[in-house]
């Protein structure tokens, strides 16, 4: 580990903590409903007319309040409609404009998989974008989902906050209004500015056909055909993909979507060309999730509670990034005959496999931690090539529920489920029945919270267990065996269920079994968790608010932040520790006695 690396990490978190307040306050103004309607923001003169026009065109009554069930139904209808739209665009892209490479229609199963993946904010990609998706598909089919799925997450987080803040009310707001305002006021303006900033760093934005370049050094390639014949050919040219990247890149990070314009994702020089663009991308992942904690504090009238939640997130983030950076900066124990002098001016200083030289170890470890803390899933290094412990960090981050800052909206409401759990377990110890910000936590709330928490072990462990039991379907496409193979399978299901979308690439998931099972995992991981979550919000909104006294369970103190952190770690660790012991932990221990997989 180097001072330079730590300075960048410190700068990163300092900026996030500084941006949380202005970002959060702005979102409060966008979403907080007063009797007189929404509060004023400086973008209103520009956006209010657009907003009104949209409502008029779609026939939405912005003043209609929805119960939690109506809110969920509206979201499901919206998601289903946009999902079908994306499916159709993929299927007919060969007849549509902006297809300079004349890419054919996407196969039905893949088109379906991709539509599900993008509408659940997962952005798991079973395809190579530059050889599969036309520019129009990327823009109209995929980038739009990056906005929508993020706006849906944001809307649900806001609805949950309203559930806590409201007193004896049955409704949580209007889904269409929250969706529209989240997109217009928050996602669009920041994405536009961010896209421009990215182009300044060299991220491309064009509709050109792919460029063919002549190789300075021709390559000889030997391939084995299906008939067993080997052919040797010399490659003299390279095709360089082009496209409207910057516009999609911005929302890919800001909306914690993570689906790359290119297969190499943020490791690709056209997506993420410089250390500065890399830094901005990491910042944009955490920007909204960090701000939402402040929004939470402001909307429930307890700003310090928001800070306590942010503190818990920051602690967990730090533990992750420290472990990951430390593990990746270790010399490889198998290379004991090689001079691995840890001098950073001369050497990489650790495990550089699968990492981009322009980012180095610190920024790769930080990116891997951040992208899995949140449900982003963009990568600037190959997680599969990390050391066992370095790879354990992204895996655990996802398994803990992606609540460390977390996805846009999803991170906050996931965190609030843990808050409810922490309050319920420890709340009794102050001699009162558990209450959270004046709302009594009762049987129904606990029931829904447990349903939410059950999804992760059920889907991740359940599917992974089935996969390892099927030698052909589950293990057949596994590149690595032993504990590393188990890590790859666990990672795939964790990533899909957690709507992360990053992968341990050693597993070829483009098989029927994995496409179907991962698709189901993405679906359940999104909607089966959103529904019980909003059920809690609907139930909380109807309750009275018990006034805050000296006898109230404190949710604003450092002690609470520590408690929340422990509950997340203990519940997450207890659930997944046995599986992880046979995966990354065993691999780490075996590595040090000379076994690799």
């Amino acid at each position, binding site marked *: 580990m180097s001072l330079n690396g730590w300075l960048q990490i410190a700068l990163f978190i300092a900026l996030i903590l500084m941006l949380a307040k202005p970002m959060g306050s702005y979102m409060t103004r966008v979403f907080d409903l007063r009797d007189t309607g929404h509060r004023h923001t400086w973008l209103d003169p520009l956006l209010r007319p657009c907003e009104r026009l949209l409502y008029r065109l779609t026939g939405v009554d912005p003043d209609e309040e929805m119960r939690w069930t109506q809110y969920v139904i509206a979201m499901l209808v919206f998601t289903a409609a946009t999902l079908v739209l994306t499916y159709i665009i993929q299927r007919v892209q060969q007849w549509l404009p902006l297809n300079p490479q004349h890419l054919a229609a996407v196969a039905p199963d893949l088109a379906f998989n991709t539509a599900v993946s993008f509408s659940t904010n997962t952005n798991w990609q079973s395809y190579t974008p530059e050889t599969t998706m036309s520019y129009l598909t990327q823009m109209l089919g995929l980038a739009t989902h990056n906005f929508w799925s993020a706006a849906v997450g944001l809307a649900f987080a806001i609805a949950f906050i309203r559930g806590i803040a409201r007193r004896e009310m049955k409704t949580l707001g209007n889904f269409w209004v929250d969706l529209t305002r989240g997109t217009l006021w928050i996602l669009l303006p920041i994405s536009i500015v961010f896209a421009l900033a990215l182009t300044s760093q060299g991220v491309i934005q064009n509709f050109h056909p792919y460029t063919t370049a002549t190789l300075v050094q021709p390559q000889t390639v030997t391939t084995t055909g299906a008939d067993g014949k080997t052919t040797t050919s010399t490659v003299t040219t390279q095709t360089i993909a082009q496209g409207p990247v910057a516009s999609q890149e911005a929302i890919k990070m800001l909306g914690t979507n993570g689906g790359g314009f290119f297969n190499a994702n943020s490791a690709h020089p056209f997506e993420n060309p410089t250390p500065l663009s890399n830094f901005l991308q990491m910042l944009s992942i955490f920007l909204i999730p960090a701000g939402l904690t402040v929004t939470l504090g402001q909307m429930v009238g307890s700003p310090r509670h928001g800070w306590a939640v942010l503190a818990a997130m920051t602690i967990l983030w730090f533990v992750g990034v420290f472990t990951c950076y430390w593990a990746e900066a270790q010399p490889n124990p198998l290379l004991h005959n090689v001079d691995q002098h840890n001098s950073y001016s001369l050497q990489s200083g650790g495990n550089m496999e699968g990492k981009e030289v322009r980012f180095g170890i610190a920024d790769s470890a930080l990116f891997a931690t951040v992208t899995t803390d949140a449900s982003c899933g963009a990568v600037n290094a190959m997680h599969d090539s990390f050391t066992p412990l370095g790879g354990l960090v992204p895996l655990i981050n996802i398994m803990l529920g992606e609540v460390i800052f977390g996805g846009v909206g999803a991170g906050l409401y996931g965190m609030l489920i843990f808050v409810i759990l922490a309050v319920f377990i420890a709340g009794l110890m102050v*001699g009162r029945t558990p209450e959270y910000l004046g709302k009594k936590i009762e049987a129904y709330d606990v029931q829904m919270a447990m349903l939410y928490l059950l999804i992760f072990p059920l889907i991740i462990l*359940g599917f992974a267990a089935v996969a390892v039991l099927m030698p052909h379907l589950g293990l057949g496409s596994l590149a690595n065996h032993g504990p590393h193979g188990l890590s790859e399978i666990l990672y795939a299901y964790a990533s899909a269920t957690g709507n992360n979308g990053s992968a341990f690439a050693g597993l070829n998931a483009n098989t029927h079994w994995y496409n179907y099972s991962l698709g189901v995992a993405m679906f359940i991981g999104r909607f089966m968790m959103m529904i019980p979550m909003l059920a809690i919000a609907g139930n909380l909104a109807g309750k009275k608010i018990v006034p805050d006294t000296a006898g109230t369970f404190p949710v604003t103190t450092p002690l609470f932040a520590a408690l929340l952190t422990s509950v997340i770690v203990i519940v997450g660790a207890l659930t997944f520790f046995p599986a992880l012991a046979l995966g990354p932990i065993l691999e780490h221990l075996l590595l040090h006695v000379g076994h690799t997989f």
Partner: protein
Amino acid sequence: MSTARQAKGRSSLFDKKIMRRASIDALAKLSPKTMMKNPVMFVVEVGSVLTTALLIANTITHHGHFRFDLQITLWLWFTVLFANFAEAMAEGRGKAQADALRLAKSETIAYKVSKSGAIEEIPSSQLRANDVVRVLAGQMIPGDGEVIEGVASVDESAITGESAPVIREAGGDRSAVTGGTRVLSDQITVRITSNPGETFLDRMIALVEGAERQKTPNEIALNILLAGLTIIFLLAVVTLQPFAVYSGAPQTVFVLISLLVCLIPTTIGGLLSAIGIAGMDRLVQHNVLATSGRAVEAAGDVNTLLLDKTGTITIGNREASEFVPAPGITDVVLADAAQLSSLADETPEGRSIVVLAKQQYNLRGRELAHLNAEFIPFSALTRMSGIEVDGRSIRKGSVDAIAAYLVEHNSQLPGQVRDVVEVISRAGGTPLVVAENGRALGVIHLKDIVKGGMKERFDQLRAMGIRTIMITGDNPLTAAAIAREAGVDDFLAEAKPKDKMDLIKREQADGKLVAMTGDGTNDAPALAQADVGVAMNSGTQAAKEAGNMVDLDSNPTKLIEIVAIGKQLLMTRGALTTFSISNDIAKYFAIIPAMFAGAFPVLNALNIMHLHNPESAILSAVIFNALIIVALIPLALRGVSYRPMSAAALLQRNLIVYGAGGIIAPFIGIKLIDMLITALHLA
């Protein structure tokens, strides 16, 4: 008295008789029908049955590792039995009490008064509500009822444990009598108010026995949490076998079930119902009967305590301390009128006026009977009392009441008298204005005496976030002065029953939970409205039915203890839940390396406790898991120690003791057990 009873309760925590009965009950509770109610322990029982079946099968086919498998199976059964034993222990104390109460329920002869007035002897079990019975000195009161005629001293020790007799009389707030108590002197006529099987004694027996025990709302919610955690761990263990097979290290059913049982929250799952029963039992030890566990939980949640000033904050009686005459009136005239008007006033205040007049002015108390006087009793409506004698019409009462009275007589209260009233009120005294024939004579200064130690208790309550509101019929100035002296947070002055009700509703509208005590029939609506309504046993039947608790000692200060007991119950639940979940970390470090160290010796790096071998490690974890239930039974029954402090301080203290303690304790415990079983060559 109640302290003596508590001491008895404490010493009998592990009474041999109760323990013997509990051991038998623990076996009876193994019935799956009973176990189903507790999802966590039911899983353990199913696990025990599975391992037992497998053990038998393995023995026949000569498979398995008999010594280890047998020990695991036995300890799994012990885990279930220990949990059952804890519950049976908690119930046992109640059962012993119920037995004692049943003795009081023995059949007696009731003397039923028929409509014609004839007296008919029938067994008490045939009495129905609205029957009227006559009870003579020395007889047992045959059922719950209301005294409609007469006054008697009654020995209620069968119910309250208090041996001093109490007075029960027709009318007023001391008219309720309880079946099974004994009339000591005089005779009373009682209208029976309950049918056989529904009497107070029946309810009390059912309550202490736990027969009607239903899970409280918080218990239900906690059970859902525990069931959810159990399912999560079930998933973790069930899926571990495929991963183990994949890794080339398949596990035996014994090991997998051991892991499962160690991970699921058996400690709290096994002790949860014992904690609830013990909480109710602690109330009974304090001579308080709660009609439901829900009320005990609500007591812990109380935000606002409504305390009657008289008897709770001040020692029951105010005393006359001074006569302040109006201008132009001598103090002797005032004292004489005051004494006259108080002769028939049997309240302590009335008596103190008579006494003060005698002491200061040597005015002798006259016999009412000789005076041919008409006594006008105090009524809540006029708020005055007085006397009509020899053409003199004397009234005494609150300043507003007398002022209104004077206006009726085309007169008014002199300004100087008002000033005096103000001065007395500010000083916390109660001014009682005396008027004769439409003329104000002066003011009697009644002094309230605040009980010792109340200020400190209110400070403690405040630290716990509980607001105390003093309820008093006094005027606002007097009330404010006493409130200040006693250190309550707020007061409700000149309170009529409706004001009390409105106050409760107002507090509840703000989301607060309100506790109050009451004894009179006019308290009944407020008692029913309050979240915790404690009726005094000496009170009317209506009050006792409206509230959700009855204090057998009729001590209104007990409300503070009731709140403490409620809080202690909830804290015990939370502490053991936290402890139970924190325990799992150590168990993982014992069992996971033991499971896989055979196939992958490198995993011994996780064996940070350096347990002797895989079998001893798993066995130690299972044994620890079973023994910790037994070890915590006293804590579950007694409740965690509780001192009033702020929630933040409580949380910090309990998180360190039960959270951090829960993480560390099993590391030590498992290691010690491992050393022991290694020394005994058990594994």
